[in-house]
């Protein structure tokens, strides 16, 4: 079991508020790792610090054996961590296909000269981008909507599209921020299948979720944040029994 991502004593504060305090956790390659906790516990803040949207104030992150320096989001993506957003951030006026094609940006090279001259190399690259994007759309289950403008897609399809776009960056770790938010039971079940499929294909998944049943049924391991601190990190069954966690959050549900 190799460790893919290790966070060591990560801290972040906003003015007087300590949003993250010495959070240390490690994610193994090929597992589905859940991050849960009450509202305001710091889960999305952790995501944002991890993916470079916020600058961390302390601690370090080691990914695939290499430390992730104070990186900007695009460097994090280049290193192999892709993410989705709590409030779905698609390119609303681009088609679904184009959205995913944008995801291929960092693994392709054509620049201005290539764009204007459009020689054989560029044309081949464009065709490859298009094909891969189409494949990914099929993979997440919205292959038929390739040419529909993103903001016209249903909510569930938009979430899938965001995942497809993140997958287009060829990540090693996929970080999903509340992917099941606003979904009903059927959609959640389909999402569960999709994520399990990702694990089967060798991807590591980190996910924030509030849907306890989904987390317990899906995740190999779970970490619990409360008030910016990690209060548990274990397999779901144990976390469910942990009195600290119950006290903070779970309250005996499920």
């Amino acid at each position, binding site marked *: 079991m190799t460790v893919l991502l290790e966070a060591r004593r990560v801290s972040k504060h*906003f003015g007087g508020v300590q949003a993250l305090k010495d959070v240390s956790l490690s994610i193994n390659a090929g597992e589905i790792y859940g991050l849960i906790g009450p509202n305001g516990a710091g889960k*999305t803040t952790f*995501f*944002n610090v991890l993916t470079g*949207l*916020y600058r961390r104030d302390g601690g370090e992150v080691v990914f695939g054996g290499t430390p992730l320096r104070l990186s900007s989001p695009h460097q994090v993506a280049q290193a192999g961590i892709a993410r989705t*957003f*709590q409030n779905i951030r698609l390119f609303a006026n681009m088609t679904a296909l184009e959205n995913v094609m944008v995801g291929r940006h960092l693994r392709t090279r054509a620049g201005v000269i290539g764009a204007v001259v459009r020689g054989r190399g560029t044309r081949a690259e464009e065709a490859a981008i298009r094909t891969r994007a189409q494949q990914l759309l099929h993979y997440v289950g919205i292959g038929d909507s390739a040419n529909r403008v993103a903001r016209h897609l249903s909510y569930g399809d938009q979430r899938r599209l965001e995942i497809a776009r993140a997958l287009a960056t060829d990540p090693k770790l996929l970080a999903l921020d509340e992917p099941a938010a606003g979904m009903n039971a059927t959609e959640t079940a389909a999402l569960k299948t999709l994520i399990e499929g990702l694990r089967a294909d060798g991807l590591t998944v980190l996910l924030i979720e509030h849907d306890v049943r989904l987390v317990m049924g899906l995740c190999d391991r779970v970490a619990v944040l409360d008030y910016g601190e990690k209060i548990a990190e274990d397999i779901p069954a144990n976390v469910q029994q942990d009195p600290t966690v119950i006290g903070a959050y779970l309250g005996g549900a499920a």
Partner: protein
Amino acid sequence: MDILLQQIVNGLTLGSIYALVALGYTMVYGILGLINFAHGEVVMVGALSSLTVIRPLAASGLPGPVVMLIGLAFAALVCMALGFSIERVAYRPLRNAPRLAPLITAIGVSIVLQQLAMLIWGRSYHSVPELLPNDPHDFFGASITEVQIVIIVVAAATMAGLMLLVNRTRLGRAMRATAENPAIAGLMGVDANRVISMTFVIGSALAALAGVLISANYGIAHYHMGFILGLKAFTAAVLGGIGNLAGAMVGGILLGIIEALGAGYIGDLTGGVLGSSYQDVFAFFVLIVVLIFRPSGLMGEKVAERA
């Protein structure tokens, strides 16, 4: 040393005017997130319309200050009506449009106002009759005229009045609430539209005052005077922290002093290479530097970006 004090006096005068205009920018930006490009032109309209009243009255024998007050009252009425209409006609319908639209509209309003002014008052530079005695008084080796004293004092008093309004009255509370969060303010019974209108009206009244004062200071008024003034006042607002009233005042005065000192010393600083005709460049330079290195301004708060 005399030059330094003199330039500071000049800068304080100019800066007081910048502060008055900057308040208008900062109030509108705080509530709507919009740069009211047309605000400088409202100042110009204030100056020119006050002149329309002042010129006939000045010959009538009424005491200077009285004529000025009448001119100011007239200008204030005109500008307040103007500000109100601009908001209603050009900005309100675009409240929910993408950012670019109100900006372009504001530019359009600015152009319309300039051209209307040119059509109404002509292209020439209008001289302002001397209504206040312009004798210089000695001030620790520098000279300060009564006009300058009036400008500084009146501007300061007005700004104090505005702070009182914003911090101690119901309307002021409503304005601050709407600036923070219009939706919640609405839930508390604040009529956002009315508050926004009042913001424009108050800002325009200040603009009228600034117009009267600046034309008294320089002795001329001109249809193109609003453009550069507006830009500099906006710079002052940004310098102090856009959205922050005290910041606008501090920014205005500071910018006035920087500009005066710069114009006075630039010859020495650059060994004669650059002359005082580069004065306007200072404001732009300050603007660029502030926006790059400290976009929240001197007194603004840093805004974290949320994912």
